[in-house]
């Protein structure tokens, strides 16, 4: 059991944004909430999944919806906590702990908010190891775990429970409808997981990984060392290329932000980065050189901070690196859910970490 301090939270915000692989929404508001919580007395504890009993129950929290709407509605820890207590009421059971659905972006910070409100620990694990756009793109879906129930909460006192669905795809469809009615944002508690399920299918150590990553960047900047080198060393990442953004194309299709960014890496040498909310594929001379589920992180070349697909723009100096995918997504089922074909590409995954 590790106590979490404000230093860890500040580092988590930087690290979660990097693991967002271009999406996941900014951790800024969650960070502000946590700074305020820490000015009062707050105790947040991080526990390893291995300490869970098999029949413990773990809450999985996330905000679902449009990052743009969060910019106006702001993050609210009481709402996140309410999604969890609503689930407890629905189940008639109490949660032993809370965990993140996705460690990438603002959602990676949410378990900390719920934990501070509810006085239960945070499990050092998530179900993506990064950010992904859809409900079935999780390790729990790869494990074919039950997708329901799910609770959704709106600050006006609207609460909707999706009590049962046959598949993860149906969960995505049903909950997305509710979310749009709320105003395209909902605090949610996903299908509860048993301790056994978290130990078997959760991606362990991702919260401490995000904290470690963020700390590497913060420390490197503080001591005027290269933050990108620090990330690569800390997480066994692979440097892919550095260059300047010379073209950005965005469009919304079926509710997602899709597009590409072109990076000039040398005179007349261009690399194309595709995205669907998050970075999906890197192309060089028409051939894919990196793709999901490897984590593609596009960073500010100077500061090492992540650059989101919503804000990337002409002229930025960027460095792209890859971090290893969680093992669960390298299986046949894993690749079916989050490999290049799951994003509509007609090629098979080849990891940059396999020579």
């Amino acid at each position, binding site marked *: 059991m590790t106590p979490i301090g404000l230093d860890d939270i500040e580092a988590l915000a930087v690290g979660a944004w990097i693991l967002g692989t271009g999406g996941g929404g900014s951790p800024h508001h969650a960070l502000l909430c946590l700074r305020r919580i820490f000015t009062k007395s707050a105790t947040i504890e991080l526990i390893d999944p291995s300490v869970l009993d098999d029949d413990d129950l773990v809450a999985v929290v996330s905000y679902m919806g449009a990052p743009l709407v969060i910019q106006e509605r*702001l993050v609210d820890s009481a709402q996140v906590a309410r999604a969890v207590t609503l689930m407890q009421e629905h189940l008639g059971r109490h949660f032993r702990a809370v965990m993140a659905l996705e460690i990438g972006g603002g959602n990676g910070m949410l378990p900390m908010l719920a934990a501070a409100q509810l006085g239960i620990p945070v499990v050092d694990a998530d179900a993506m190891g990064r950010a992904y756009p859809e409900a079935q793109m999780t390790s729990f879906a790869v494990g074919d775990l039950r997708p329901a129930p799910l609770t959704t909460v709106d600050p*006006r006192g609207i609460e909707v429970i999706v009590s049962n669905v046959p598949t993860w795809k149906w969960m995505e469809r049903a909950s997305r409808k509710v979310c749009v009615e709320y105003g395209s944002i909902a605090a949610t508690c996903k299908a509860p997981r048993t301790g056994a399920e978290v130990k078997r299918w959760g991606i362990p150590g991702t919260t401490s990984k995000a904290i470690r990553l963020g700390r590497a960047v913060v420390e490197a900047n503080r001591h005027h060392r290269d933050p990108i080198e620090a990330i690569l060393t800390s997480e066994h990442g692979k440097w892919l290329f550095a260059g300047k953004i010379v073209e950005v194309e965005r469009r919304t299709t079926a509710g997602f932000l899709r597009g590409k960014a072109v990076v000039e890496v040398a005179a007349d040498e261009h690399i194309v980065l595709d995205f669907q*909310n998050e970075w999906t594929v890197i192309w060089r001379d028409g051939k894919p050189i990196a793709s999901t589920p490897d984590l593609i992180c596009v960073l500010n070349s100077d500061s090492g901070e992540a650059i989101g697909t919503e804000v990337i723009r002409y002229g930025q100096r960027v460095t792209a690196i890859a971090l290893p995918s969680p093992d669960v997504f390298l299986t046949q089922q894993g690749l079916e859910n989050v490999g290049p074909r799951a994003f509509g590409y007609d090629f098979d995954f080849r990891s940059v970490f396999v020579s």
Partner: protein
Amino acid sequence: MKRIGIDVGGTNTDAVLISGYDVLASVKAPTSENVTGGILAALSALRREVDVGDDVEAVLIGTTHFINAVVQRRSLAKVGAIRIAAPATTELPPLCDWPTDLGRIIDGGSWIVEGGFDYDGRRFMPLDRAAIRKACRDIRNNGLAHVAITGMFSPLNAEDEQIAAGIVLEECPHASITCSHELGGIGLLERENAAILNACLVHFAQETIEAFGRAVASAGIDAPLFITQNDGTAVTADQAAARPVYSFVSGPTNSMRGAAFLSGLDDAIVIDVGGTTSDFGNLISGFPRTANDVVHVGGVRTLFRMPDLVSIGLGGGSVINPDTCAIGPTSVGFRLVEKALVFGGNTLTASDIAVAARLANMGERAKVAHLPARLVDGVLARARTTIEDYVDRTTTQAGDVTLLAVGGGSFFVPEKLAGVSRVVRVEHGDCANAIGAAIAQIAGEVDQVFQGLTRPEAIAQARELAEQRAITAGADAKTLSLVEAEDIPIAYLPGNALRVKVKVVGEIANLQRGVRTDAGQVPSVYA
């Protein structure tokens, strides 16, 4: 048509007189403690240079006074903040992300009431007018004179902010009111911060701008006063006094606009080399490219139109390290004339290197004759690679760019640079900021989410709205032109949601007559 442009900086007050497209005179005077003195001194100097005449049509002033007030935490008033967004947002109340010292100075209390809208224009909650009225009574009892009002998604629907402003006006008739929708786009905290910053400066801005008016009048100039904005456009003195945050960085912006005017170029990278820093900016269609990211002002996170400038510690007064050839970032600043070697001082500055290399002529060259060629060449090489690097960072297109070099230290910019097709220098370049003020136009802007429209329809609708806003602000409808259009699809939202940003500009309505009679010459600013 004659106009006077004035730049009130921290050190110098510059003034220029232009007629049509000719710069008749440009002068510098020291800025005074009370702004009036510096402006009077500059205008007197201008009169000594040239016959100003009695046909000046407008005086346009750019100033960094308001941003300096925030940075230095002085002349700021307490603000009452009303937010219309409950029951959402209550965990992050107004001022929650401000630096403690600044927050303490201006915190007059905050009230979060029910109301506001959603991204699609639907109502979030019914507006709680009674709660606003109650907040007003508290505001009155607390003796507050400035109120900032921020409603959820107000850039898309300003109705609740307007109703709240009406109530404040009834209950606190003497209070100044700043509504957030007039200042910023999507991002409640950042827009609210801009509104509160604005509200705390209104009193100081009114006093300062009135002082500007008195100074101009007592210099015997009878012409309307305009204040220039962050984006290089101008508004009437009254409007500017109500929105000081829009004048925060008019100095560097005016410099870029002045450079564009003097050179006749619309698209270029501009480098303004001063005494302490060099500012790099990207001139697009005669205007500085604006940042679409969050900007911090005096430690406060805000989001409104600001030019995208990069400032580095390279200037005429930069201190040189003789061992490493490193330049700056420390500078001797206005003490150059006592500290630099060429002036008999004992600090090696960038200007000494320039004199030794015969790039500049000041002080006594004999005093730098001993500098080894290795050092002089080393520093110049360092300056060259630094400038090349930042030009490349600033540019947004592939291919070589035109570089416009202005400012007192522009002799540092070499004639040939990697990535630069040509370096352009202009006469009066050291007063480019005052010239930029003199030529300012009126703008109208829109930043809004459109749904259920095709992309061309959304852009056309945004443009029409922007044109209406420009005309309301005092632009001549016949001279309006589009200078910026950007659209960003929004993830997750249904109905082809598109965020469209559009900006149009035009000439000041009662001034543009006669402009185009000028011998068929159509300079960049009117193109």
